[in-house]
């Protein structure tokens, strides 16, 4: 028995094919069966369930390539289930979690655990990175081949940079044996050590130790040299500086297999958000100055920055209600990823298709996941959103277990009305 759903009256958005027009989409048995302007012109058979999108945008579901979920280990902050619940309401149909759980995900049994839980939960597909080094200690490589066979999407030490140049070289080289991706947290730790926010006037005024933007640029430039000699595939997570973006731009021009992403806070905020020691605005890498923020937008515009990821980082009150330097970094972002990104569209920086490319198509491509496209045969993972609906972010109403976001009361435009995973509606906004 086939399950068929016809989505009508939708503004179809598919950056891969350049499609942006009103039409219909037919999902059958979890995959996209047809796309077109007039699929229902001859009427539809009775077994087809019809969803009227009421003129909303219909895009490939978002692939959020950088989230932290706290299971196993810190389930009081977030579980795979609560994370998936928050993700579906944000239009995210696939997400990739960092391996910085307790214990860290450096063994194939843990990768398989995440896969099994994801299928049981049956919401947003949860994929996981595996640790690039055993115990995230930055010394010995993990079993990349076996971990990839178990389902790991790529390899990273999460919040820690792979600092040792020889270890990074071996990681890139060994990963390329199996054509696997290494993801780097771009901060030279010796320069970042002890720093709490971006180095500059505000840090000096607040008396906080600063982290120079060069800490990011140096790490990225070093890694690019290592990519050159190893021929590996390399991705820089959450770039925040003009220097790093420029380095990636030049590396791409030279034809290296390098990609990068950023997070909404690096284009929606700058270091002034720290204000009077607001720990909700403490992130790693830190919020930078206005020039860097503009460079992030420019990087998204010209495609140097491939993807936008939420960088979802749940932190409980105990982790944030601390003196600034002692507080944990991070912002929860699953539910604000789309509306904050849509600011780039509403203020004219990015076209809608460019935005969907950064949120859906490119992250899926970088991680070699099947989503990110509206085309027959692709999974029917869809995000349906009202492009213009204005609302205010209410941090207390977030579904994530933690509410650490510096956006409370921020007016935004654009809201997810329905999220579909494998043809099945997993989130629907009450009208």
């Amino acid at each position, binding site marked *: 028995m086939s399950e068929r759903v016809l989505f009508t009256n939708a503004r179809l958005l598919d950056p891969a094919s350049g499609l942006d027009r009103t039409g219909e989409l037919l999902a059958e048995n979890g995959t996209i069966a047809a796309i077109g302007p007039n699929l229902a012109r001859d009427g539809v058979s009775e077994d087809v369930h019809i969803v009227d999108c009421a003129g909303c945008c219909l895009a490939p579901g978002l692939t959020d390539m950088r989230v932290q979920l706290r299971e196993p280990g810190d389930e009081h902050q977030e579980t795979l289930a609560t994370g998936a619940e928050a993700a579906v309401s944000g239009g995210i149909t696939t997400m990739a979690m960092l391996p910085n759980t307790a214990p860290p995900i450096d063994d194939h049994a843990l990768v398989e655990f995440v896969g099994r839980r994801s299928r049981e939960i049956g919401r947003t597909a949860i994929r996981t990175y595996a640790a690039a*080094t*055993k115990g995230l200690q930055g*010394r*010995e*490589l*993990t*079993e*990349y*081949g*076996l971990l990839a066979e178990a389902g790991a999407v790529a390899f990273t030490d999460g919040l820690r940079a792979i600092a040792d140049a020889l270890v990074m070289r*071996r990681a890139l*080289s*060994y990963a*390329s*044996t*199996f054509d696997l991706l290494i993801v780097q947290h771009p901060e030279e730790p010796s320069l970042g050590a002890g720093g709490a926010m971006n180095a500059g006037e505000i840090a000096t005024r607040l008396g906080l130790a600063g982290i120079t933007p060069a800490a990011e640029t140096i790490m990225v430039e070093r890694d690019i040299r290592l990519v050159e*000699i*190893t*021929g590996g595939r390399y991705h820089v997570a959450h770039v925040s500086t003009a220097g790093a973006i420029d380095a990636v731009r030049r590396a791409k021009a030279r034809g290296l297999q390098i990609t990068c992403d950023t997070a909404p806070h690096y284009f929606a905020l700058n270091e002034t958000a720290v204000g009077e020691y607001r720990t909700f605005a403490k992130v790693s890498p830190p919020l930078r100055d206005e020039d860097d923020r503009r460079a992030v937008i420019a990087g998204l515009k010209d495609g140097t920055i491939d993807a936008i990821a939420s960088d979802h980082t749940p932190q409980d009150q105990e982790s944030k209600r601390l003196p600034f330097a002692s507080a944990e970094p991070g912002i929860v972002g699953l539910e604000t990823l789309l509306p904050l990104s849509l600011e780039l569209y509403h203020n004219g920086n990015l076209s809608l298709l460019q935005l969907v490319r950064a949120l859906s198509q490119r992250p899926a491509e970088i991680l070699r996941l099947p989503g990110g496209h509206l085309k027959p045969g692709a999974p029917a993972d869809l995000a349906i959103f009202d492009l213009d609906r204005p609302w205010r972010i209410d941090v207390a109403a977030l579904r994530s277990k933690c509410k650490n976001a510096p956006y409370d009361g921020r007016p935004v435009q654009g809201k997810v009305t329905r999220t579909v995973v494998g043809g099945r509606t997993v989130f629907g906004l009450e009208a």
Partner: protein
Amino acid sequence: MDSGAANDPFPHRHLLGIEGLSRSEIAYLLDRSDVYADQARGAERLTLLRGGTVINLFFENSTRTRTSFELAAKRLGGDVINMQAQTSSIKKGETLIDTAMTLNAMRPDVLVVRHPESGAVQLLSEKVDCAVINAGDGSHEHPTQALLDALTIRRRKGRLEGLIVAICGDISHSRVARSNIHLLNTMGAHVRVVAPRTLIPPAMDRFGVEVFYDMRGGLAGADIVMMLRLQTERMHGSFVPSIREYFHFFGLDYAKLAVAKDDALIMHPGPMNRGVEIDTEVADDIDRSAIRQQVEMGVAVRMACLEALSREARAPVAP
């Protein structure tokens, strides 16, 4: 009598490596090895080296290579002295040359040298008057191993030219791989190297080999599968994350061997790590495995090399 270098089938004073040897020189050594291999056992003691002295100078532990040279020299009627040097307790370089000078004063005919540092055997050869055979220097060359591998292949397959030879494992640190690559290429075989990228040294394309990072691709249609020892002390997350992972992707078992030719020959220079680079069943498969034959051929090859060099050493030096 003025024989002249042009007529000499092996006009070299030393055997330091395969690189630089011509096709005909290699063929000559293999032909002579063939003769010795056929007559070796039970043959009466030969007299070529009678009154001559071969010194085995080993700065690195070895049982099979040293024994093989010793047996070869004795079968040729020579006297053999084994010297096992302790590298850890002496300063390298200066002491190596001092040792060479001391041994040189004893007027041996052939020095057989193994040393953990690449280039050390050549350095020593520049300081002595006798012939020097490299029995393995660092990650550089191990010419007699390559010759015995070639002899084994030639006797089993009837030829070297045109064969597809897949050399699998730690290419980076292997002197056996380097000597084999030079020899097999010179003799017209098609050489592939197969390993995780961390174990493949840079610029392999300059050596005329095809590089593979997976066994399926690397072994497809291969006539010869040559496994190298994984030096487990190098494992520990540095070049390869674990033995489990290495064996899963690069260890030779019947499943991986299935894509090679039906009559593909399995070789290994020894000592083997069973369950690391090679499955025990495959290693012991008497129809496919040439591993024991390799050891046997070792003596014949070393006899041929001693013969070629001692003859050269005894030839009158032109004024």
